[in-house]
């Protein structure tokens, strides 16, 4: 019983309960106090009064900043996920079809960067994309461009950063899926007269659906709420909701609005999260 | 009432000098509506089981996969809890006794050897749990290593052993605590065919030399017949028949048993004459009547089935004498399998009858070949009347 009890209570206390508190505080009002918000419940003169401030949520709708930040987060996360899929699928496929002896080595090569610091890997791109950075220096020297390209602090840099940082999350589930793919299916398709690209389109791709979903969700969901990448590589007009939440909290010290932003973000992500979770359990049942 | 009994004496262990008939029970399971293993929720996995197992015998539960035989084994080991019923071993109710306190040990289908322990440690594990003194453990482990011929390999790890060696270790490990009951779950399933035949005899010899009561589960009828002193045929959670291999094969009590063990030709028919020493059955599929040399309990007019094993039929090109027990047909198919040839003969009614003939001579083709018109016949004692 303690085996269930300890992790259950820990997770309940430090994971589920906090969300309830975020939900509660999203209905509070900002106040000059410690902590900087008002209480929801007040008990005075035998009266329990509940003050629910829906202003934070209305504010999210009224102020164009939030809505466009949500939309642009979704757009950028989706775009980056698609790019990561384009880059990652051939990679995963190539590894899965490599000689079994070097497969693990190749896989290690994909995972290894993930074990080094996320922050430092994003930092590396600053030096590469800067106006006087490596790419510009190279292109200038080769005479391809006359004036340096503006790449750092743009949406482009954010896309590059997300694809770069989350590529292992895309490749790993795809690889796990593709390596299980029985080659005799492909041989059967070829034997029945399908050209390689048709075999890929009608056999390999549908069979790897599970890996595509898992990989895409693993990139998409954290990318929507990403903070470090837009903060370091994005520009002042790069709108991403993670960054907005961070600034609301740390710069404006408006905890109630930050909570409301978090709840809205959670609602936005709950569908892909559930989908991912359902998919994972399904995979586990099947295997 | 559904009982599994483990009688103190009986079986085929003459070394023990025990009488074949005994009323002392070693263990017993009892249930009302049947045992419902918890795992299967609403499905009744084991139902209506009534069984007597004698001390020292090797009892095989035989059935297709999903028939409930493994559940029955796991009930005995204590991994499944009967929703309804009672398990008694050596006079002790097992209901509230955890698997780790039962006097029962099991050899698993996958052998389940502990991968991080060597052969000796694997065998010693059970004794260690009982806090047996170290010197005693060593002595017992040496004994068992000797018994299963694994003395030289005592410090190998499971992955360093071949399939047969692993099985020996698994057997030694489950015998280490001298259980009152040894359970074998599909003991040969993890071995290839050649090794299987050798290990069947070896495992039986070891079990008999130890004299432990043993219940095994298998879907392989040859394995059951080679290893067991008695067989219980299971289907859909029910025990259809129990008996010696000979009895189950030669005197099946229902069509399912007859068909599951070996091959059989069954003819449906109606009783037209029934007396103490014989019965005559009208079999429309044969256009002829069947004569069986013993009486049955059913009355005239009862619909029944007659089963005849393929090897108990003779095949000939000339019509046999006598009016009963033969059929005419055309050879449809001949399968040459080495020692035997199997003939598929199609009767006028369209039924296919299988007949096996031993290939006693070396002729490439027998006397009888495709499309020959042949006559099949059998002795009155060869057929079995089945009522369900």
């Amino acid at each position, binding site marked *: 019983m303690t085996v269930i009890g300890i992790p259950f209570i820990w997770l309940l206390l430090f994971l589920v309960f906090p969300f309830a508190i975020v939900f509660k505080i999203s209905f509070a009002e900002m106040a000059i106090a410690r902590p900087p918000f008002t209480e929801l419940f007040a008990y005075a003169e035998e009266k329990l009064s509940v003050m629910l401030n829906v202003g934070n949520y209305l504010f999210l709708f009224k102020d164009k900043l939030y809505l466009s930040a949500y939309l642009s987060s979704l757009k950028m996360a989706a775009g980056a996920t698609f790019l990561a899929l384009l880059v990652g699928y051939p990679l995963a496929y190539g590894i899965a079809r490599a000689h079994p002896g070097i497969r693990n080595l190749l896989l290690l090569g994909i995972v290894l960067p993930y074990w080094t610091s996320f922050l430092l890997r994003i930092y590396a791109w600053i030096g590469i994309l800067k106006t006087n950075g490596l790419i510009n220096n190279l292109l200038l020297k080769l005479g391809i461009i006359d004036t340096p390209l503006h790449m750092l602090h743009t949406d482009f840099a954010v896309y590059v950063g997300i694809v770069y940082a989350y590529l292992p999350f895309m490749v790993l589930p795809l690889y796990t899926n593709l390596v299980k793919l029985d080659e005799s299916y492909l041989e059967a398709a070829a034997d029945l007269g399908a050209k390689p690209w048709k075999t890929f389109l009608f056999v390999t791709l549908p069979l790897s659906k599970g890996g595509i979903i898992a990989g895409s969700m693993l990139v998409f969901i954290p990318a929507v709420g990403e903070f470090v990448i837009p903060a370091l590589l994005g520009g002042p007009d790069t709108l991403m909701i993670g960054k907005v939440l961070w600034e609301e909290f740390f710069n404006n010290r408006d905890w109630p609005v930050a909570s409301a932003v978090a709840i809205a973000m959670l609602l936005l992500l709950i569908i892909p999260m559930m989908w991912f979770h359902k998919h994972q359990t399904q995979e586990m049942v099947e295997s | 009432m559904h009982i599994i009994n483990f009688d103190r004496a009986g079986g085929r262990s003459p070394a023990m000098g025990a009488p074949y008939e005994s009323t002392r029970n070693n263990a017993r399971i009892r249930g009302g509506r049947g045992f419902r293993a918890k795992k299967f929720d609403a499905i009744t996995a084991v139902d209506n089981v009534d069984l007597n197992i004698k001390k020292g015998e090797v009892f095989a539960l035989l059935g297709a996969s999903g028939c409930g035989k493994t559940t029955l084994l796991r009930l005995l080991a204590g991994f499944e809890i009967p929703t309804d019923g009672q398990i008694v071993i050596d006079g002790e109710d097992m209901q509230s006794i955890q698997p780790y306190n039962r006097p029962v040990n099991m050899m698993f289908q996958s052998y389940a050897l502990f991968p991080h322990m060597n052969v000796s440690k694997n065998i010693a594990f059970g004794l260690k749990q009982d806090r047996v003194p170290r010197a005693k453990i060593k002595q017992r482990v040496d004994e068992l290593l000797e018994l299963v011929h694994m003395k030289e390999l005592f410090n190998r790890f499971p992955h360093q052993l071949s399939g*047969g060696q692993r099985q020996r270790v698994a057997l030694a490990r489950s015998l280490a605590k001298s259980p009152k009951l040894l359970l074998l779950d599909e003991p040969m399933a993890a071995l290839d065919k050649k090794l299987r035949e050798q290990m069947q005899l070896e495992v039986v010899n070891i079990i008999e030399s130890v004299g432990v009561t043993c219940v095994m589960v298998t879907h392989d009828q040859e394995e059951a017949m080679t290893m067991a002193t008695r067989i219980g045929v299971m289907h859909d959670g029910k025990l259809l028949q129990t008996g010696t291999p000979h009895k189950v094969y030669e005197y099946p009590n229902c069509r399912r048993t007859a068909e599951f063990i070996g091959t059989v030709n069954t003819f449906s028919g109606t009783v037209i004459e029934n007396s103490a020493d014989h019965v005559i059955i009208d079999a429309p599929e044969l256009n002829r009547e069947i004569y069986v040399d013993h009486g049955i309990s059913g009355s005239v007019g009862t619909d029944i089935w007659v089963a005849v094993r393929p090897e108990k039929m003779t095949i000939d090109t000339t019509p046999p004498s006598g009016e009963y027990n033969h059929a005419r047909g055309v050879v449809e198919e001949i399968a040459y399998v080495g020692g035997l040839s199997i003939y598929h003969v199609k009767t006028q009614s369209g039924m296919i009858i299988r007949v096996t003939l031993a290939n006693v001579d070396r002729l490439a083709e027998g006397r009888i070949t495709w499309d020959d018109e042949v006559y099949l016949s059998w002795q009155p004692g060869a057929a079995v009347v089945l009522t369900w």
Partner: protein
Amino acid sequence: MSATRRSPLLSVWLLLGYTFLYAPIVILIIFSFNESKLVTVWAGFSTKWYWELFQDRQMLTAAWLSLRLALMSATAAAALGVLAGLVMARFGRFRGHNLFAGMITAPLVMPEVITGLSMLLLFVSMEKVIGWPDGRGLLTLWIAHVTFCAAFVAVVITSRLREMDESIEEAAMDLGAPPFKVFTAITLPIIMPAVAAGWLLAFTLSLDDLVISSFVAGPGATTLPMKVFSSVRLGASPKINALATIVVLFVSLCAVGAGILMFRTERQRKFEIQAAMRDTD
């Protein structure tokens, strides 16, 4: 799958892919030895940034804090994760199973800003109501890190337990070992490599975390990523390159070591299995 008829295009793509993954890291390392303060213009070889890094007291304090935090978090997360993995893989469908499975997967996909904010609000509220935890610092950092790292460990352990033959545990029980003994004598030794992997994963995650830490750290405690982040925001510095080089060196040494070890044991094992197969029974 075997290596039958692989398109050369695929090999080119693999090459490009690995270049994409490793070029930034290699560049980072190269420029850590740059004489110039400009991280992108080569001005000769020098190790001076390493000396500067080792003299940066703030950086060293932050690194020391991060290391201690990571050690403590990884250990607790490994223990908690093993328990959670056991619940997931061995306890079947008890009441609340779905909630539990959901709680385990949530930190894996939850945006860090949300996790961080919710943790902070929890600590603040708890302090207000029960007076604990008193302020924010190492303790709150530890709780937060254990929580999200445990989820990752649990995933590793769950999948290891699921692929383990359950009859090995049943066999131990059958031979007289009560459940706790089965766990300590059989299950734990067998899954130990996975526990070690989970611990390492938790260690790196904790060492690397910026967002959650920033929320729950409070003014007193600054972890290494927080320090790096604030200095990077002020502009690139070769000192950070030097730090990155050390991190990369450390990680690759660990990975190469673990890789060689795994490769060796695997080869040894294969060899022994083949030898066993040749043995006659």
